[in-house]
C-alpha cells in the first residue's frame, strides 16, 4: 500500500493506506485521533471540522493522497498547542459559556469558530451576525445561542 506523509498536530506522521481513503478515517480508524467526529460523511454537518494549514477543512471529504508532506493538519487535540497554552482561547470561551450539551459536535464547532475568527480578522472585520448565521456546523442539542456568545468572547481573546 502507498505511504502518505503529512503533519498532524505538530508531528510528522506516515500511514500505509490507499490514496482514496478519506482523511477522517485515517485519523479515526488508523491513527486513533477521535476528536473529529462522523456526522454525515458528505461534508454537510461539519462535525469533523479540523484545520489544514490553519484553515477549516472537513476530513470526510479529503482523500489522504491529496495531502503533501508539508501540509499541517490540526485537530481539536492539537488546537491548544497552536496557542501555546493548555487551552486555546476559544476552548476557554466554550467552558465559560458552558456551551456543550452532549458534546459530540463541539470539537468541530470550536475548530470552525477559530477558522472563522481568523478569516474575519484577515478581512479586517469584527465578527457579525451574518458571519455567525453562515456557520454550517449542526448542533442537534441546539446549543447555537451559547456558541454565538462563545465565538464573540473567544474572538476577543484571540486578538
Amino acid at each position: 500500500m502507498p505511504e502518505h506523509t503529512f503533519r498532524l498536530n505538530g508531528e510528522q506522521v506516515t500511514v500505509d493506506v490507499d490514496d482514496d481513503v478519506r482523511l477522517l478515517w485515517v485519523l479515526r480508524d488508523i491513527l486513533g485521533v477521535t476528536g473529529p467526529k462522523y456526522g454525515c460523511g458528505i461534508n454537510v454537518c461539519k462535525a469533523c471540522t479540523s484545520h489544514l494549514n490553519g484553515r477549516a477543512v472537513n476530513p470526510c471529504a479529503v482523500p489522504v493522497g491529496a495531502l503533501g508532506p508539508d501540509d499541517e493538519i490540526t485537530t481539536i487535540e492539537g488546537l491548544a498547542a497552536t496557542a501555546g497554552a493548555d487551552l486555546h482561547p476559544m476552548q476557554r470561551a466554550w467552558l465559560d459559556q458552558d456551551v456543550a450539551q452532549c458534546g459530540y459536535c463541539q470539537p468541530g464547532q470550536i475548530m470552525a469558530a477559530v477558522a472563522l475568527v481568523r478569516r474575519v480578522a484577515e478581512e479586517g472585520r469584527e465578527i457579525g451576525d451574518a458571519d455567525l448565521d453562515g456557520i454550517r456546523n449542526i448542533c442537534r442539542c441546539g446549543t447555537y445561542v451559547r456558541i454565538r456568545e462563545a465565538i464573540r468572547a473567544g474572538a476577543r481573546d484571540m486578538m
Partner: protein
Amino acid sequence: MTDAEPTSPPEPAGHSVGRRRFLGYVLAGPTLVTAAGLAPAPAARADGIPSPEITELVDLNDVMTAAALPTSGLITVEVGEDGSVSFALPRTEVGQGITTSTAMLIAEELDLPVDRVRVTLADARPELLFNQLTGASNTTVSTFVPVRVAAAVARGRLLRAASAELGVPESELTLKDGTVTGPAGRRVGIGALAAKAAAVRTERVAVDLKPRERFTVIGRSHGRVDALAAVTGRKRFTMDLDVPDAKPTMVCRPPTINGRVGSVANLAEVRALPGVTDVAVIGSGVAVRAETFGQCIDAVRALRVSWRPGTAEGKSDEVVLKELEAAELPLGLPPLTPSVEARFTFAFRGNSALEPNCAIADVRADRAEVWSSLKAPIVAKEAIAAKLGLPLGAVTVHVTEGGGSFGRKLFFDAALEAVEASRAMGKPVKLMWHRADDARQGRAHPMATSRVRISYLGNTVLGYRQRHTSVATDLSHGLGEIFTALAARLPVGDIGFSETFFQLSQNMPYDFGAHSRLLSETDKGFNTGSMRNVYSPDVTCARELLVDRLAGKMGKDPYTFRRDFLRDDRAKAVLEKAAETGNWGRAMPDGMAQGIAFHSEYHSVSAVLVEIDCRPETVGRTVRDAVTGPRVTKAVVAVDVGLTVNPRGLEAQMAGCLMDGIALALTAGLHLRDGHFLEASWDNYFYTRQWNTPPELRVVVMPDSTGEPGGAGELGVAASMAAVACAYGRATGTMPTRFPVNHGTLSFEPKPTVPPVPASPTDGLDHVR
C-alpha cells in the same frame, strides 16, 4: 451510626422514616460503600389544584417512580482511598446534564467540591428492573432523594470513623471539602478514612438529609462536569472506544423502509475490495466489516443486492394521511353553541441525534459484550441474550455516554445489528449507521393529525375536545424492562400502553369546561419512536393555535385570554413572566408578530414567547443549501420546574427545546414517497441551523415553588413549537394547519436509494476556508 439502627420495624430501603429521615445502607467491603434504594413513591402530587385531571394526581413520572419501588435494587456511593467519591448512575447521559446534576447532589450532602465526585454510567443491571430507563424527563425526579441518602450515609460513616481516629466526639467535627476537622485544627482527609469507615457486614442506617435552607450546591449554577473533555476532544463516545479488533462495520440497507435481502449478486467481489475483511447477510441488510469506515462505505455502495419489499411499500404522505383520517375517532356532533374547530397535520420527523446509531459488539460462543449508549439497557441486554440464545448472565452491556438522543437511544437497533454481525463474522465489530441510513431507516416521530374543537358561549368556554390520530409510536422499550416491553409489543397491549402514556402525559391547563382528549393509532409499518417530549409538541401546538383563534372570536388578546383561563397559579406566573420579559404586545412592523404559548408536564410549567419575522426580504434571504424562511428573531422561555438542581443546565435544556420547537414548527419534516423517506442528509432534513437561530434568547428560571424537582429535559419543546406556530399565524394572518409549515415545498434534490448511501466526496480541499 450503626447504633442509629431504627427502633421501628425495618422498612423498605430509602423509605422516609420522618420528615427528613431516610434509611440507607452501608455495604460490606474493603472501602466505604453506601447505598440506598431508589425513591419512595411520593404521595400523589395534586399540585394544589382540585381537579378531575388524572395528570395532576398521578402522571407518568409518578408511575415510573412507583414502578421502581418494590424491586429497585440499590444504588451505591463509594469513597476511594484517594479521597474521590464515585457513583455509577443507572441512567444514560446523552447531553441532558444528569452526570453534572447527580455529582451536585452528592457534593451537596458530602460538602465536597463537585469535581471530586466521579459519576459514571452503570452497566445494564437487570436487578434494577424498571429502574434503569432514561426517559420522560424522570431522572432527577426519581433519583433526587436516594442519591442524597446514599451520600448522607457516607457522610455519617466518615464522621464516625473520624471521631474514632481523632478521639473526639462527632458533634465537634466538621466535614468540608473532603476533610474532617476537629478541635485545635486536627484534621483527616476522607481518603484516609475510606477504609476505616467501611463496614464488615452490611448494615441498615437511618440518616437525615441536609435541609434546603443549607444547600450550597443544589440550586446554584454549575458548569458541566464533562465540559473540559468535550472541548478538548477527549470525551469518549461509543465510536471513539478502542475495543481490540472491533473493526468498522456498516450495513447495506434496502431502498424502502424495512425491505429485506433477497439475494446478493457479488459477495465474493465485495469481499475482495480494499480493506474489507468480512461481508455477511443479516436481518436488516448486508453487513460489511473493513479496516476503515471509508472502505465500508465503498463496499456498501459496491454491493449488488436484490431486495424484497418492506413494510411501507408504495406509501406516501398522502396515503398515510388517508389512513389517519380513517382512524380518527369521532369528535361528536357539532355543538349548538358557537365553536372553533380545526384539524392539524404533522409530518413524520426524524429524531436522529448527531451521533448516528452505533454499537460495538464482541460475540463469542459462550458470551457477548456490547458497548452502546442505551437509555433502556436492561431491555437491550435481555433482547440481545434472547437473540443470541445466551443466558442473561453471559451478556455484558456497557452503557456509554451518548451524542444526543431525543428519544432515539430508547431503542437499541444498532446494538442488535452489531451482535448479529459479530456472531455471523465471528469477530468483534464497531457498527455505525451512515447518516443516510439514520434518516431513511432510522426511527421517526410518527406522522399525526390532531383535530380540536372548542365550544363557547359569551366569555365562557364550555368544552374542549381533541382527537389525536397518529401512526403508531413504538413504545416497546416499555418502562425499561423486558416484561413490560413484551407487553407493549402485544397488539392490544401496545395500544393500551400508548393510550396510557398519552393520557398520563397530557393535561388541560385551562378552565375549559368539559374536556376530552383521545389518541388513536394506526399503521405499524414504520420505524417509529417517541421523540423528545413525545406527543406533547403536536398536541399542544394544535391546542394553542385554536386557543389563539378562540381568543380572537372573543375579542381578547392571546396573552390575556390565557392568563384568564389558566387554572394554576404556577402556570399564570410563568405566563406573566414570559409576557413581561418579552414585552408582550409591543408594536411590530407588518409581517412580524409575537406568539405566546403554555405547556405543563412532569410537574413543571413552561411559557414561551417568540417574535417572528415573516417579511419577504427575511423569508427569501439566501444561505447556500439552506432552508431559510421565516426567522424567529427573539425568544423568551419561562419555566418553573419546582426545585432546580442546576439552573445553568436547565437553561441549556430550554435553549435546546426552543431550537427543537422552531424546527418542528417551521422546517423539520420527513417526506414519504414510494415507501421511503426522501431525506438522507442534514441538508435535506432541516433541523434548526445557525441561520434560523434567534439572535436573542432569554431563559427565565422561576424560583422554587414546590420544594421538589420536576421534570425538565423535554419540558420546553411543546410550548416552543406552539409559540412559533402562533406567532407565524399572527404574522401572516393565516393560522398554519400543516407542520412543518414548509412541508409542501421540497427544497432539495433527493439522493438515490440504490446504492443506499452517497459517495464520500473528494473535493474537500476546494472548500478549505
